[in-house]
Every structure is written in structure tokens, then in C-alpha cells.
């Protein structure tokens, strides 16, 4: 593995043992979620200013602020506020945003589905292309093609996200070509699927970033596999290159790609604030940043927990897929 995956997460063979491990993982994740909700709640308390000030703005008199604070229960001790929130959550109630007066669950759900569509589409672009590029550059390692692709991927990787996003806007929508709309102006009244062209640029930005990462993993693994004794033996036996690639090399190259895809999938929920911002894309990250800005604690809590749940769930699912993809007998090799 070239990536940064946790070796502790290496999945041993033996299905029953795996189920046990996954059960433990679930339990640990739950504990971590609780710890996180407390930490985040504590952190929001330490922020200067509060939601009452934000709701009332510069016009407010101290009396009005005090009244709103007690209305919103902000003057209760922190632990009481937390318990109240946690109690509601256990009953499936995320609460209502103080700021927008909307159920927090609705806000989060809309943002998740937007992000989900964009991530799925970007994966649909980046995974097949990365596999092709990875295999191609591994087979022709150190050739001209390999070097060019590597250089481009290094450049893509090195540009800060917002720079790539801004350059794509200039190139594809406002200056050179006029192919895609520059802003992801999604109407909340329709499903994202019905307005796909509007997310083309965010999808493309994410896909390019993903590719520059995926393909290098695939390439590295492929080189390993192609140099292995096993493949050497198959080659000596006269097995055609095509068969070696498809039957032996590529299945192995998939494993790290899946791990990486898992990591990127999780990061895309909340971790790409900058890209969302450039395209005015209504994703989880900007919603969270805005909620921090307006001190909307309910929303901050709900989104951070959602992001964490997605992170833990992705890890577990990734491991399951890894397990399924790992050819028998090469179990520990992942």
C-alpha cells in the first residue's frame, strides 16, 4: 500500500471473525460519535458571539438579546443544553435551525443528496479513467506517456483546490469555451438529476483531483504485481499479456483503488468547502461553514455528526469490499 490507509484496518480472512470485528468497529464508532458530539458542542460554546446576536443583528438592544437567549434556552448551563439536544436526537429529532426556522433534518438531507450525486458522478468519471491510465502507465512505466501523465497529475495535485476550480471556470464557462454553467445554481424544487449540467463543473473538478490520486495508486500496485514472481511465472508459462493483466493484475490493483475511493468519498462530504464555495454549490461543507459563521449550533451538530457517520460507515463498507475483492490466498496482502 502506498496510501495512508490504517494498517489496523487490514481485514483478516475468515467471515465469522470479520463479522465480529465489524461489530466491534460499529460499537467503537458509536462511542466516537458521542465523544465527538460533546467536543463539538463544547467548541461551539467557546465561539465568540452567539446566535441571538446573529438573529437580531446590529439593531438589537441588550434586553431583546437577553429575551431571545432565554427563549432559545441559551442561558441554561451547557450540560443541560447538551442533554436536551441529545435527548431530542435519540427520539429522531435533529431539532430546528434557529436561523432558518427549518427542520435541521431537511437541511442536512438536501445537502447530502446534492453531494452524493456529485460524488457518484465524479467517481463514474474518475475510476474507469484512473484504472485505464494506471494500467497503461504501469505497463509502459517510465515511457513518455507515463512521464506526461505523471507530470499532469502532479500539477493537478499541487494546485490548491480553489485554483483548479477557478481555472476550470475560466476555461470551460466564461472565457475560452462556454460549455458549462459557471455556478451550480440548483433549484431545491427539483431533483439534482433533473439539472445535471449545472453540476458539471464541480463534478469535473472533483474527478480531476480524484484521478490524479487514484491513478497513481493503481499504477504503483500494478507495477508491484507485474514485477511479482507470480506474474513472472505466468509469463514464463506463455500466458498472453492480456490475460495476465485482466485475470491477475487488475483485480489486485482494484484493492488500493477501493481503499482510496473510500477515503475520497468520505472527504467529499464536508471536506471540499472551497470547491463548493467557488461554484456556489449547496453541499454539506458550505452549510457547515455557514452554520459556524452564524453560530447555528443545531445545524453545526447535525452536520458534523452526519459527516462522521458517513466517514465511519465508509470505512466499514470499504473494508468489506476490500475483503470481497481480495483474491483468496492473497488475503494478507491488501
Amino acid at each position, binding site marked *: *500500500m*502506498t496510501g*495512508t*490507509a*490504517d*494498517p*489496523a484496518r487490514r481485514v483478516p480472512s475468515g467471515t465469522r471473525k470479520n463479522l465480529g470485528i465489524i461489530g466491534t468497529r460499529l460499537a*467503537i464508532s458509536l*462511542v*466516537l460519535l458521542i*465523544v*465527538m458530539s460533546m467536543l463539538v458542542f463544547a*467548541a461551539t460554546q*467557546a*465561539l*465568540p458571539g452567539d446566535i441571538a446576536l446573529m438573529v437580531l443583528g446590529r439593531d438589537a438592544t441588550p434586553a431583546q438579546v437577553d429575551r431571545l437567549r432565554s427563549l432559545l434556552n441559551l442561558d441554561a448551563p451547557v450540560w443541560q443544553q447538551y442533554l436536551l439536544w441529545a435527548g431530542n436526537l435519540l427520539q429522531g429529532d435533529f431539532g430546528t435551525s434557529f436561523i432558518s426556522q427549518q427542520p435541521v433534518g431537511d437541511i442536512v438531507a438536501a445537502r447530502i443528496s446534492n453531494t452524493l450525486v456529485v460524488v457518484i458522478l465524479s467517481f463514474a468519471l474518475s475510476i474507469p479513467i484512473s484504472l485505464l491510465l494506471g494500467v497503461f502507465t504501469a505497463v509502459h512505466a517510465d515511457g513518455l506517456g507515463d512521464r506526461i501523465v*505523471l507530470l499532469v497529475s*502532479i*500539477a493537478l*495535485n*499541487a*494546485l*490548491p*483546490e*480553489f*485554483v483548479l476550480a*477557478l481555472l476550470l471556470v*475560466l476555461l470551460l464557462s466564461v*472565457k475560452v469555451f462556454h460549455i458549462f454553467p459557471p455556478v451550480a445554481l440548483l433549484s431545491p424544487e427539483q431533483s439534482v438529476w433533473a439539472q445535471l449540467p449545472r453540476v458539471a463543473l464541480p463534478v469535473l473538478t472533483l474527478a480531476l483531483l480524484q484521478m490524479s490520486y487514484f491513478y497513481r495508486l493503481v499504477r*504503483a*500496485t500494478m*507495477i*508491484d504485481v507485474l514485477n511479482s514472481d507470480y506474474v513472472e511465472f505466468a509469463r514464463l508459462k506463455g500466458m498472453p499479456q492480456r490475460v495476465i493483466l485482466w485475470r491477475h493484475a487488475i483485480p489486485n490493483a482494484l484493492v488500493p483503488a477501493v481503499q482510496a475511493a473510500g477515503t475520497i468519498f*468520505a*472527504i467529499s462530504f*464536508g*471536506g471540499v*468547502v*472551497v470547491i463548493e*464555495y467557488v461554484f456556489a454549490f449547496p453541499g454539506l*461543507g458550505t452549510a*457547515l*461553514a455557514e452554520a*459556524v*459563521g452564524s453560530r447555528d449550533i443545531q445545524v453545526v451538530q447535525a452536520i*458534523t455528526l452526519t*459527516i*462522521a457517520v458517513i*466517514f*465511519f460507515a465508509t*470505512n466499514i463498507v470499504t473494508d468489506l469490499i476490500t475483503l470481497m475483492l481480495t483474491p483468496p490466498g492473497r488475503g*494478507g*496482502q491488501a
Partner: protein
Amino acid sequence: MSESTPPSRAGYIARIAANRSAQVGMALILLVTAIAFLGPYVAPYTPSEFIGRPYNMAAEGALLGTDNLGRDVWSRVLHGGHDLVWMAAAATLLGLTLGTAIGLAAAYYKGLTDLLLMRLIELKLAFPSIVFALLFVTMFGPGKLLLTVVVGISQAPSVARVMRGVALSVVRQDYVQWARSVGMPSWRILLSEVLPNTTSPLLVEFGLRMMWSISLLAGLSFLGYGIQPPAADWGLMVNENRNALAIQPYAVLTPILLIALFSIGCNIFAEGVTRAIGRTGN
């Protein structure tokens, strides 16, 4: 998984020094660092001086024109790197130190320590770095030290995971087991036996983490949570002037170019180190 005794440290460094990519990467890093640290001495103006109308490409005495407040872009470029460079370097070193300490401790002590440390890391990873940073910046204000520490902490978990993986195989080596059996204190084993054998993955991590630090710092500046005006800073310059990309491209493209060169340098360096030590697999 091959577990042959790694070559000596001197051997690694010689191999890295001989690698073309590592050389190019290092050269780029040094070039940008030189601009960042020597720039202030050769800049014609101070970074906050008004020398003309905003976004004037033809302002007299301004090589690259003026920025959004009519300040000299060239002078601001020359002044705007050292904070980014030292903050990225310091944050990366902090992240590496912290991550290595956690990773080695987890690998060495195993058991409960390992479990707790790894869960701690998972907790941090489940929280997006950029949001983590802007939460702290909102809390304490965007001080340079705070930004450095926050970015450093954000890097630690990934480093810890990698270092733990590396250390696990080192810890299994005979010489470590021997040191343990003769009762050498654990901190000494970790420092003198384990750490030296993780140098090369550390170097790779340095390159990668440096890139991430730059990207995160620049991203924070871009969102307005980084270094604050009127300071000259490459990330901030992009943010301040990006509206005017069409009329004053230098104010945006010059800092982008320098950030990218620095970042690419780190990336190529990491790539070169990886190749030099043959770390393609584990």
C-alpha cells in the same frame, strides 16, 4: 511482505540525492524559499504602500501593476511568501512530530495504547480539516501561530497511520526485540532503534504533508480565515484580487504560480524519494 533489514540511513540519503526527481523537487523548494525569504530585501515598496489606482496594469514603477488597493503587486509577491513558507514548514514538522510520536507509540506499546491512539486519530479524521481549522480560527482569531498549530494537528492523523504501519514491521525486528529483552528504556528504543529506521517513509510524508499544508493554508486564506489583511500573503492575494482576473491577471497568477511551484516541488521530491528507496509497495 518483505522484511529484510533496511539499508543504512547514509545509504538512503545517497540514493535520494542521486535521484533526478528528488533533485528537481528540492531545487524548486529551494527556489521558492529563496524568493520568499530574500524577496523582502529587494522589494521596491513596502507591502502596504499605495502607489496608484487599484488594478492599474501600467502604473509607473510597478512591474506587475497594482492590486485591489493600488499597492505594488511585485512588492507584495516578494513580501508574501515567507509567512506561507515558514508556516507550512512549521505545520508540517509539527504534524510529522506529532504523527510519528503517536504512530510509533501505538506500534510499540500495542494493546490498549494502540487502540486508544488509533481511535483518537479516527475521531480527528472524521472531522473535515478545513472545518476544524475554521472552527479554531473563529474561536481564537486568525493568529499565525494558531493557524500553524491547527494545520499541523490536521496533518498528524495521516502521518500517524503511515508511521504506525512502518513501525510495526521495525518493532518486529530482532535488534528491537533484543533491546527490549535487555531492558533498555522504551523511549530510548523508540528514539535510537525504531525512529532511525523510519527515515525514508518520513521523507516521503514530509513531501506529501508539506503539499497538504500549503493547500490548506492557501485554502483558508482564500476563504478569508487565513492570514489577515493588510499582510501580504500569496493565498490572500489570490482571494483579494481574483475578481479582477480579467483586468489584472498578474495579481492572481503570480502568487498562484509560486504556490504551485512550491507545492509541485514538494510533490516531485516525495515522488523522487519514493522511487529512490524503491518504496512502491509496502
